[in-house]
């Protein structure tokens, strides 16, 4: 995927946001790691402190440990939910829409989309997985989860994906900026909360994200 010739027109609807780029995403990931740590460590410390003070406080310490576990889980769940199909689905035009989406994809991406419901697309920021109402970006061993959707609830599911895919291909930076960043974390944290059929797509995107993009072969 190459840089866009023109910025996404949708950027006009979020003038307060600065453009996302290769530098801002790792910053976001570090911020999420910081907040997760800030949530977990105090609860674990409280549980340990309570047990040291009085072993009879075991149940309260257990509750504190549960908090330390569940808060990061809820955040990861929020991240995985971005690619979960939502709302009313117009299945009437789906067959036509599926054919059209297939025409936009290569052979492998088309097969993967039919199996997992997600379109894999390599960009300059990383490897994307585009769903009906959101997208995952695997970059630098982190998954960034974005909530973003086409502004027409009547669209069939595959057309919703095609909308997002075309916007992403037109202007990756603009797409990343327009989308709402919902979560960033390690792939295993998101994987556990994804629908089972979507997990192979995340595994493949994670593998591809650590490999350099294929270079076009030059025949002499």
């Amino acid at each position, binding site marked *: 995927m190459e840089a*866009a010739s023109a910025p996404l027109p949708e950027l006009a*609807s979020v003038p307060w946001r600065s453009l996302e780029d290769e530098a801002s995403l790792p910053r976001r990931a570090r911020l999420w790691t910081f907040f997760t740590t800030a949530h977990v460590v105090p609860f674990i410390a409280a549980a340990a402190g309570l047990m040291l003070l009085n072993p009879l406080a075991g149940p309260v310490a257990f509750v504190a440990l549960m908090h330390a576990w569940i808060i990061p889980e809820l955040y990861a769940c929020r991240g995985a939910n971005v690619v979960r199909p939502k709302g009313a689905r117009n299945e009437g*035009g789906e067959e036509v829409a599926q054919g059209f989406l297939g025409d936009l994809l290569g052979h492998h991406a088309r097969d993967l989309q039919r199996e997992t419901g997600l379109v894999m697309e390599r960009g300059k920021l990383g490897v994307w997985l585009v769903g009906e109402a959101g997208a995952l970006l695997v970059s630098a061993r982190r998954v960034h989860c974005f909530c973003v959707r086409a502004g027409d609830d009547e669209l069939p599911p595959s057309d919703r994906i095609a909308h997002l895919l075309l916007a992403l291909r037109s202007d990756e930076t603009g797409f990343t900026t327009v989308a709402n960043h919902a979560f960033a974390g390690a792939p295993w944290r998101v994987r556990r909360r994804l629908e089972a059929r979507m997990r192979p797509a995340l595994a493949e995107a994670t593998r591809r994200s650590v490999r350099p993009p294929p270079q076009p072969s030059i025949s002499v």
Partner: protein
Amino acid sequence: MGRLIRMDASGHSTLADWTALDEKAYDAAVEAFRRELDEGYIGVVSEGEGHATQVRELPRDADLVIMRRPIAGG
């Protein structure tokens, strides 16, 4: 031959098609294209895997021009 389509509830609808030599068909396609822009659609030319370009004018030499709805953070 060029084709102008709009992604909509039916999957997609063909709005116009034209050939480089058929000026009348091209003018009709331009009119349909502008009407869709006025409705808030965005024109995109798909250029194969991984490539797409937004257009504000209908390119005469494009094979396929797609009208899409704007996207927004969910």
